[in-house]
């Protein structure tokens, strides 16, 4: 193999999330492992949501990126456990999301099993106000909820805790 593991990780950092294009897949925290065996590179990926349509697209982008770099033998492995959590997103990713107008996950301490738990308190990514309300638990993609700022009145996406 002409590449080191470190170089492979570098290549993977060039693969963007198709639905949140400001993040790459390392910042998203879905690449769990890179294994090099002879001339084969195996990339272990943990999907964000079970039915996320971006999953197969991300797998294809990883394959294409590595082929582009001259690695012909690429193996992609899906690993479900431990389940992906927004805690695996990097600190830098949160800043990038905010700059893009998406409120990053707030790492809620609320009990996930509590049916009557109050929704996460999310600061507005536009004006920074903490005076916001949940409009809908479900947003434009599986990973987002819809909020609105009560001060600047702007609606915004929230990358929900998972």
């Amino acid at each position, binding site marked *: 193999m002409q590449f080191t593991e470190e170089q492979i990780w570098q290549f993977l950092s060039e693969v963007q999330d198709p639905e949140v294009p400001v993040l790459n897949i390392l910042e998203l925290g879905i690449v769990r492992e890179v294994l090099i065996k002879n001339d084969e590179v195996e990339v272990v990926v943990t999907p964000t949501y079970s039915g996320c349509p971006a999953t197969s697209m991300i797998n294809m982008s990883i394959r294409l990126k590595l082929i582009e770099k001259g690695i012909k033998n690429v193996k992609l492995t899906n690993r479900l456990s431990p389940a992906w959590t927004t805690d695996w997103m990097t600190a830098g990713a949160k800043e990038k999301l905010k700059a893009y107008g998406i409120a990053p996950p707030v790492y809620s301490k609320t009990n996930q099993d509590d049916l009557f738990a109050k929704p996460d308190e999310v600061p507005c990514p536009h004006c920074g106000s903490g005076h916001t309300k949940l409009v809908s638990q479900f947003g434009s993609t*599986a990973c987002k909820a819809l909020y609105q700022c009560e001060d600047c009145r702007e609606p915004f996406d929230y990358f929900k805790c998972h």
Partner: protein
Amino acid sequence: MENTENNQLNYLLHLADTSMILGQRLSEWCGKGPVLEQDIALSNIALDLLGEASHYYELAANLQGEGKTEDDLAFLRNERDFKNLLITERPNGHFGDTIARQFYFDIYHVLLLNELKKSSNSETAAIAEKSLKEATYHAKWSSEWVIRLGDGTEESHDKIQKSILDFVDYTDEMFIPTNWEKALIASGEMPDITTLKDKWTTRVNQVLEEATLTVDFSKSRKLIGGKDGKHTEALGYILAEMQYMQRTYPNMEW
């Protein structure tokens, strides 16, 4: 040995069919939801369920070992081969009906996955661990809607009250094991669903009370049979629509 494998295959298909049929049902709302946000919510939940189903189908196809894929299992089996819970195939009705059906299922789904994630089969456990997070989120959404409609206007209260009563007959099936399930429970290969009933009733009642709704579960007609392939007339129509393309153009791919 062969029998044991059959039971395991039945169970995977039951889990897969249940999530897929409900996902397919919910996807019928796409573009027709009462408001845009809830239209999107229904499609999101449908997508999670279809994702969960495809993971189980993949395991089932591997276990079957006949070179079949998850698509073969979803698109080329007949009505009598489907093992989904009857409640999942019942028609959408109005928004309140869909919410009532979803609420009963979500509360059960969360309790089931919570047990399934401790399964000795690490692959099934991994799917359960993954799906549990999503199912919990669904349960919050449907519980909230039961409360909003029940404790809402007079009209919304009356409508959801009727929906909540209409689906009661289909809830017992979640907790009554078939013969092949009894064998799997005895060998510890699947959670003992009979023990989930009390927890389910407690959680359901907690929400119904908040929603000012009432139901008497002892009046349930206990309709069962879905897990053994005996379905209501609704399933055939779902399959006819869902399987049309694959049956008309065999081996087609997107």
